[in-house]
């Protein structure tokens, strides 16, 4: 490793640490709107995006099923914990089980679902994998849309009033959720960094680069892909549980095609090559989402007679990023650093023209 690369790593660590200290101070630094609406959401969406990036960076699989996994966890939790309101319209199964048990079952159930889905898709790679996971996602959406006794007609609400005692009040104490989400996000980050260093993680990266060679070395290639998909489903389920606490409800629209594409956009904006990009992309997306909606930019669209709303803008941003820097913001940073120092970072994962992308 050259001295420059080491310097770059120290710079990154410094920035990361500074960001961590800043968000850890939380209420002291940010106002309520920023803490609750933007940062908490960033942590939660970032976890889901991290599960996507984990699969893409270390498994060479772009999964569009992560929102469906989030939704699975959310719907399982919602159906199990809520109780039928007296006299009110019942939504979902309203089992009214113990919240702690429900959380465990939601995480386990989603992981299991991920293993099954992963097993089915495990013999496909590259663009086929993307298509199969996209069908998972859309099928998941139509499932909750059709099976209305599981999803309620318009979703299940009031889920966040049923939390276990050790989690506490999610409805009024928003900073509690803020710190829980932050904590889970950090755990997820550390967990991913740990898993990719284990023998399993190393083998997974081998499978990503040379599936045929790994297979002839005796590694079970589909099994590694399946397990990785299951692990990513577990991470997404954590995000799903936090999401229903944050929103208080879960509806079919939360896992629709729009949500699926949004999560992909988050991951791509951040950069599909490195896990840190997940939260960077989430922050960028959510800030754009909160501040551009109905602002001067949409008026600009009207002025030039294009019309349309926020989605046109985010689509254009997405298009620009994919064209200009397929590695996202992280890739942009890598490139800028390379330009500034005149070096090429040997660690830089080449996402765009990667061998996985060129398989046919």
């Amino acid at each position: 490793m050259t001295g420059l690369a080491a310097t770059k790593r120290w710079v990154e660590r410094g920035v990361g640490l500074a960001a961590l200290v800043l968000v850890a101070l939380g209420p002291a630094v940010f106002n309520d709107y920023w803490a609750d609406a933007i940062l908490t959401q960033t942590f939660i969406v970032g976890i889901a995006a991290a599960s996507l990036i984990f699969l893409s960076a270390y498994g060479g699989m772009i999964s569009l099923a992560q929102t469906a996994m989030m939704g699975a966890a959310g719907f399982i939790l919602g159906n199990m914990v809520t109780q039928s309101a007296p006299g009110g319209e019942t939504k979902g199964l309203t089992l009214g089980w113990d919240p702690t048990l429900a959380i465990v079952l939601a995480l386990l159930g989603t992981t299991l679902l991920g293993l099954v889905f992963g097993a089915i898709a495990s013999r496909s790679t590259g663009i086929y994998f993307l298509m199969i996971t996209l069908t998972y996602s859309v099928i998941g959406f139509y499932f909750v849309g059709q099976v209305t006794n599981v999803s309620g007609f318009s979703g299940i609400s009031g889920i966040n009033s049923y939390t276990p005692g050790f989690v506490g009040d999610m409805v009024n104490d928003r900073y509690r959720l803020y710190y829980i989400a932050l904590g889970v996000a950090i755990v997820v980050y550390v967990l991913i960094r740990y898993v990719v260093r284990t023998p399993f993680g190393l083998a997974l990266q081998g499978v990503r680069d040379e599936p045929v060679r790994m297979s002839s070395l005796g590694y079970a290639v589909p099994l590694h892909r399946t397990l990785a998909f299951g692990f990513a489903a577990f991470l997404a389920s954590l995000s799903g549980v936090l999401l229903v606490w944050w929103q208080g409800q879960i509806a079919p629209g939360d896992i629709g095609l729009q949500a699926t594409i949004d999560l992909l956009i988050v991951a791509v904006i951040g950069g599909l090559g490195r896990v840190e990009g997940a939260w960077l992309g989430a922050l960028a997306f959510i800030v754009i989402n909160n501040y551009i909606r109905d602002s001067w930019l949409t008026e600009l669209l009207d002025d030039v007679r294009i019309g349309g709303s926020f989605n046109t803008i985010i689509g254009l941003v997405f298009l620009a990023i994919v064209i200009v820097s397929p590695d996202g913001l992280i890739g942009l940073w890598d490139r800028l650093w390379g330009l500034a120092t005149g070096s090429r970072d040997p660690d830089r994962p080449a996402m765009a023209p990667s061998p996985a992308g060129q398989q046919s």
Partner: protein
Amino acid sequence: MLVGFALLYVVVIAEPTPEVGGNWRTTNFGSLFDDWRSFTRTLLNGLTFAGLLFIVASGFSLIFGLMRVVNMAHGSFYLLGGYIAYEVQQEMTGQGFTILSAEVTTWEWIFPALVAAATIAVVGLVVQQVFLRWNQGQELRQALITIAISVIVADQVIAHFNEGIASTITWPGWTDRLVELPLLGIDYSLTRLVVLFLGVLVAAALWAWLYRTRTGMVIRAGVDDRQMTSALGVNIQRTFALAFVVGSALAAFGGVVGASQGAVAAGQDGQWLLNSLVVVIIGGMGSLLGAAAGSLLYGLVFSFSAVYLPTTGGNCCTQYSIVFTFILLALVLAFRPQGLFGRAA
């Protein structure tokens, strides 16, 4: 086993739902032996849906097979095609929102369809030339680019076409009746038969084009080995552009047919992207036969599971038919990851 049981269930076991209650064997319709008229009707519904599926998915499959481009904007082309034809037809007939079917001539249906197909063909050509030509081989990047385009199109459709609310193109007057089918002894909607006919027509035209002309020969050669074809002196870029034009036009034409049969509405782009994906994943990428087989299987499973799945009294609106789509997909992928008629990558 599972397939056998499903067949057995539809043929023998199923019973019509009684007024109240019901058990696991009850469905909207009875079994083949009990109630073969509704069975035949369901079969025909499946076939006609398959016709529409084929029109849309064959374009998707053509583009993928030749260029390895997963056109995520295929559903958007469907949506745009439907809306453009709707606007043109409104313009031609000079009516408000509802048009009486009797007042529409055949030409007033065909012309909007042609305009829509031609417009989307140009849109497809522009997309391919501007966004997809310079990054060939980077499949993922191309998929992401077309996703971005589909996001923009979906939003623009809401902004410009009838606010994205459900809009129906009116079939020409002579189709708006029931015909008595000989031998089967049931009345059946003529428009649905027209859809089936159009599907078969597109299939026949595609087959003749791909297997009986020089251009088709080049395309098939390109599907098999792109580099070799181009090394033999064929202008492969022109062939790519042509495939994209035809594929996009097919999506738009499918949109016109779909909007005539049901309605076109914002949000259907995702649905038709899913339909195309399921058909080509089942049938195998880039194979005409595969697209036909995939359409048939998916159309029949969709149609039968919607009416033959057990219904129990009480919950009126819960349907499980989507689960069967998934099971079909899982079964095919488990045994043939490359699809029924696909070749190993």
